[in-house]
């Protein structure tokens, strides 16, 4: 009897214990540190800023050197590989290619998917434009890239196939057109605010950004698929609604990890030992007496009155001067914006479209507006004498021998110094202008200019079946002249 009581007591305790751990006890595997949901207003600025940080950061350094705005300094060697064209499959792998896919594009895809579902066409357009912009950079750097299969990891598509450049280009136009067709005025379209870190919520400007991006994409194909380019641009000129302002990101502050990325890493972190004025740009601007030179570069040894000293491209092993102090360094500032498409670039694109006869309007006026915008961007007063009759930058009367195109692209090249190096690298690949680049003295490419990046290691090792065979860094991409 006594034992029965005892056993009952024990049994009771066991029951109490065993029932105390229901499902609630185990349903604690939702990470309390990280949210399971986030609004498009929080994710859009993340994707956009990451895209900007890469394109305006490490890609800007690569582009600045390959556009011969900058050279690797002596006495240091961080970017000696860029300046000798010694790129490997590891160059800008995870922190370039990788961040653009898994940092920027996957966030933008989330915003696209969410806003498509909720018919939030404002965010749909914004995220589509930023996606297209980012994909465009990737395809121009790598040629074939994962596009139609890309960003589908969550759907179990973990071995994306690579698409031909033309497929990507057509796809970009298609996705931009689809987003542009949506009615932004419907009630489900939420007006963006400060989280639109490019235009502060101005949707008209997003439409212009989309159109200008389309113009850029079409013009890039002008050598390879002239008919596609001309038809597309003519259609765009139905309402010729392009950017007349910068599409840029300005949200920086002069404190740790909140500065412009080139300034943050190269100036604040490294103490600025690597980037100096290239002789190519120095010679060009100096010859023309162009005031932009002094705005773009500081004199050596902190002098106030020059002269500028540049370095021959790739000459980072030179013994004199002994370090960057004896050379002109780019005048970078912590709050420098990151430009996606600058106002000047928009004008130069339009000028070219008109010269080529796809667009209508005054090419000369556009060209001059581009030069003016380039001065304004640097805080300078525009100097009309430069492009006045007889001036150094006078717009050629005809396009004989591509003279007008050359003038436009050379001015675009100058306008992109210190800020849009990668874009001017692409444009030189496309047009051959400027035509006075010097091949780097320490080049490892048998005298060839670099034209692309190599497929990255992380992709090769994890997507072996699909990555195309590696080609040389000086192999031209599909749209190259």
């Amino acid at each position, binding site marked *: 009897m006594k034992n029965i009581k*005892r056993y009952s007591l*024990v049994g009771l305790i*066991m029951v109490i*214990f*065993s029932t*105390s751990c229901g499902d609630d006890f*185990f*349903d*604690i*595997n*939702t*990470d*309390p*540190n*990280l*949210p*399971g949901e986030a609004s498009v207003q*929080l*994710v859009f*600025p*993340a*994707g956009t*800023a*990451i895209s900007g940080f890469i394109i305006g950061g490490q890609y800007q350094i690569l582009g600045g050197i390959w556009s011969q705005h900058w050279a690797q300094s002596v006495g240091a060697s961080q970017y000696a590989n860029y300046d000798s064209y010694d790129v490997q499959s*590891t160059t800008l792998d995870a922190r370039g*290619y*990788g961040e653009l*896919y*898994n*940092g920027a594009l*996957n966030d933008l*895809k*989330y915003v696209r998917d969410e806003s498509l579902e909720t018919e939030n066409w404002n965010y749909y357009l914004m995220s589509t434009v930023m996606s297209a912009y980012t994909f465009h950079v990737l395809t121009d750097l790598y040629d074939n890239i994962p596009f139609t299969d890309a*960003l*589908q*990891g*969550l759907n179990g*598509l*973990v*071995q*994306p196939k690579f698409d031909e450049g033309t497929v990507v280009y057509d796809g970009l136009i298609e996705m931009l057109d689809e987003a542009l067709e949506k009615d932004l005025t419907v009630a489900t379209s939420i007006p963006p605010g*400060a989280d639109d*870190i490019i235009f502060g919520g101005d949707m008209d400007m997003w439409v212009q950004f989309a159109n200008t991006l389309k113009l850029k994409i079409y013009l890039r194909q002008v050598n390879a698929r002239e008919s596609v380019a001309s038809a597309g641009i003519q259609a765009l000129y139905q309402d010729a609604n392009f950017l007349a302002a910068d599409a840029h990101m*300005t949200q*920086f*502050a002069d*404190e*740790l*990890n*909140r500065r412009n*990325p080139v300034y*943050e*890493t190269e100036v604040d*972190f*490294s*103490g600025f030992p690597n980037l100096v004025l290239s002789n190519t740009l120095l010679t060009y601007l100096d010859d023309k007496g162009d005031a932009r030179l002094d705005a773009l570069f500081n004199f050596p040894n902190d002098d106030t009155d020059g002269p500028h000293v540049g370095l021959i491209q790739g000459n980072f092993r030179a013994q004199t001067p002994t370090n960057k102090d004896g050379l002109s360094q780019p005048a970078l500032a912590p709050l420098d914006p990151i430009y996606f498409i600058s106002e000047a670039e928009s004008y130069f694109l339009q000028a070219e479209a008109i010269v080529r006869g796809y667009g209508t309007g005054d090419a000369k006026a556009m060209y001059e507006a581009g030069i003016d915008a380039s001065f304004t961007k640097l805080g300078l007063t525009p100097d009309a004498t430069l492009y006045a009759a007889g001036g150094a930058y006078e717009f050629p009367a005809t396009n004989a021998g591509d003279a007008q195109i050359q003038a436009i692209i050379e001015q675009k090249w100058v306008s992109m110094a210190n800020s849009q190096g990668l874009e001017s690298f692409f444009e030189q690949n496309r047009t051959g202008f400027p035509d006075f680049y010097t091949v780097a003295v320490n080049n490892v490419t048998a005298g060839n200019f670099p034209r692309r990046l190599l497929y*990255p290691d992380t*992709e090769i090792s*994890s*997507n072996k079946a699909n990555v195309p065979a590696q080609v040389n860094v000086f192999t031209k991409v599909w749209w190259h002249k």
Partner: protein
Amino acid sequence: MKKVLLTLFLASIMLGAFAQERQISGKITDSQGEAVPGANVIVKGTTIGTTTDLDGNYRLSVPGESETLVFSFIGMQTQEVAIGSRAIIDMSMSSDVQQLAEVVVTALGIERDSKRLGYATTTLKNEDLTKGRSISPLNALQGKVAGVNITQGSGQPGSSTNVILRGMSSLGSNNQPLYVVDGVPVNNTQLTTNTVFSNGDFVGGIGSQGLNGGLDFGNRGNDINPNDIESITVLKSASATALYGSRAANGAIIVTTKKGKKTATQGRKFQVDVSSSTVFESVLRLPDFQNTYGQGFFGTTDPVEQTSWGPKFDGVVRPWGEVVDNSQLIKPYSALPNNVKDFFNIGKTFTNNVSFSGGTDYSTFYMSYSNTNANGIFPTDADSYNRNTLSFRANSNLTDRFTAGFSANYVKKNSSFISTGQNSATYDELLQTPRDIPVVEAKNFNDPFFNLDNYYSYYSVNPYFVLNNNGNEFNEDRVYGNMNLNYQVSDAVGVTWRVGGDVSNSQLSTWRAILQPTPGSPNDGISSEDPGAVGEQAFHNFEVNSDLMVNVSVPLTRDIDFGGLIGYNVNMQRSDANYASVAGLDIPGFYQISNSSASPAVTQSTVERNIVGAYAQIDLDFRDYLFLTFGARNDWSSTLPKENRSFFYPSVNTSFVFTEALGISDNILSYGKIRAGWAQAGNDAKPYQILPVFVPAGVSDGFRSLNFPLPGGTQVNGFEVSNIIGSPDLQPEITTEIEVGFELGFFQQRLNFDVSLYDKSIKDLIWNATLPRSTGYTAQTVNLGEITNRGIEALMTATPIRTGSFQWDVSVNFTKNDNKLVSLTDGLDEITLGGLGGNGVNLIARPGEPVGLLNARGPKTTDDGRIIVGSDGKPVYGEREVMGQAAHDWTAGLSTGLTFKGFTVSGTLDVRKGGLFYSRSASLTQFSGTSVVTQYNDRKPFIVPNSVQEVVDGDNVTYVENATPITQDNLYSYWSDGGMGKDEAHVLTRSFTKLREVSVSYSLPSNIVSKTPFTQVRIALVGRNLLLWTPSSNRFADPESTTFNDGQGLSSSFGEFGATPSTRSYGFDLRVTL
């Protein structure tokens, strides 16, 4: 007492029902005359029997025809006595030395006679653990246990100890065993930078992960005061640990603490034990430095260079360092062979311990306090460890059926650790110091010649400045303990409830001084310029564990005893961390988050995990020589998806003591047992690997970052889609292990063998598999493969000599483990587990090969093995290739002890053979020309032996004999690339032999002690890690050193990245008992 009598009375009536014969009673005592409660008294050949009460008395009715009584008790020699006509039979039982040593604490704190176990165990007693006076109870196991690989990360006091049992068994999860104190699991977190700063978005200096500024504040398993430990049992196999559930999938370290002594029975109120030791530490291993070439570059002297690529020493007095106020230091240009060694001090560790214990037959208590104060070998107390422990335990028999026990431990730790790695880390600077630079003269870092502005090299920072001005301090208060209640419902059924808790509060402060040479001074613009930084992390750990168990013990038949156990376990773990850091300080020397105009980075984190287990065990005992145990456990873990949350795993093992079964008991073979076991064990996932999440937005270029919120008129916050895809289908990792073994004792157990063979397979390994970035993600958590560990463990113990006053014991253990990654999911042929990343040396895994392969780029070679050099005469890099596994091929330990009267001399030798490790010390001393290997060919120009140059003509590749020598122009870069071996030259053999422990002790004879207030006095000289032997190819580092502690054990096997040197220790120890 009345109740006891009543029970006995009832019992006797019940027994009386079988046969109504005569009564026999008596008292059982031990050799000291103390009562033995709970001893068994059985009528031979029947199931009739009883146990003695608390006073050792028994009373038993025996059938008339009964002839013999069998008296038995765990730890005592079983004795048989003829009944004859006696009614009172008192018995004095003597302890069975061999048996006593083999009562083993198994899973859930259950004590079992080792002969019943179907698996291997090893138990070390307090004496073995405290002999060498290590402040870590785990390090004290080194070399003494088969199947266990124990390494201490560095010589800095308090650094963590890695313990791996029977090989690596998990890729992405923990490989460390479960730590159990008195039946309750406790926390063994390794407090390394990878843990501490896991969420720290930290740039600008402090505590970045991996290669820069690695910190290691130790693992919590080392918090236990070695003096409080009665014994440590190592449970290696799944058979042994399956009842503990998923957390013991890698084995378990079972710590049993000391209980109070029943001093009242000896006429004393309590006993006091005091011990005090002083141990000194010195550097065990530095790289072999050359002493022929001094400061300079390209073969010429340079007074401000930080490398030893200068000309040969000539003894000529020359200036060195910067010109300061028109003056310059001078010294002879000659080698200072000990300039690095002289930098280090003699470290000191003082350990004092006092314990009180006492009790009666019913209740006992034990209290202890210990203090360990260690200051390591670096000057200043930037490497120090101070641990205070306070313990209290009490056990009481509240009634004859109800016992209660209680234990509480408080640990307070304050420790400081020196940053390792490459980022102005002190040891890193020292290894590069030119061979003639008197670095100790720079001690006064305010001296004009040695301050930040003028310290001799632009490429270096005065290490004394770093030691005195930067710091990493860790403080922790921890309380752990348990309570257990046991109620004996009836003779056959008992209930135990044991609940334990482990709570710690910790604070990590880390700071870096503003390092900014005066503008215009010689060192202005050095790469280590630092705006100063400070980081503070507060973290809190909580764990509670409850076990409710019912056990049943009944004889089934005359020959078969049945033991059963069912239990229910609840385990809850939670940790919280808050972290703030800021870089760019305003007021020099003031280390507070407020001291900066920059916005601090602030993060927080909470991690929770709940596990519930239900388990059962059945023991069958046939005639005390054949034993069969079935076990099963089901776990429910919060970390797995709901449908996979529950997982079940069974086990079975058997033991057959054939000497008893066959009645063999001759003088040659005195004990023989064979055993076999099969078991499964499950291992759950880490928390939060199932559901998709968003992470705070941010992006880095490898140097600096862009942090959210973005500044501006309206700050903009951001979240990103996480780059890791969770797995809604995640399964637990399941270990299946087969183990067989035997134990043989010869010559009355003077010579014993214990051999185990095991085959362990771990399936459904959880791993974050790399995805192509183009998927939008970097990795996906998946179950992806299988690992096997097969091995043999052998232990031989012998007592070759045993006379009245002299005894010599020898013990040898041997372990060989073959580890293999059997498979990965389709399409994956390699995964990277750790290492330097990129083109550097890495730790990888490939199917069909051991987990943890070192993979490096050697020189490119022709098909017939000739080295291909470039136009500069230097070997060019070849493809990356696997050099071999990180793990040792085999390990062995040899321990011996001599006892003569009061003297005891003992020693342990630890031998480990094979395996590879990466050494930054090798890389750095070759880079800076300080390594002895850089003296090759007297540094005269030479053509790389057996080298050719490649001539490429289209697709046609031919080779021509190389005629381009290495000259002073590229000698430096030849060696910094690793010389002829390229990166492979930095991968060294892990083989070593260490004289782990030596102790010489003397206990004062009792005739002298009796004239003092003490009952026992012992003095000892102790030493640990006194000697290290490595193969001649390793002239750089102690193979045990590691920097890559991630708290899991796998990536730390990669090697050392500027880990501070290991140490030898030696000192003396005094113990008295009052």
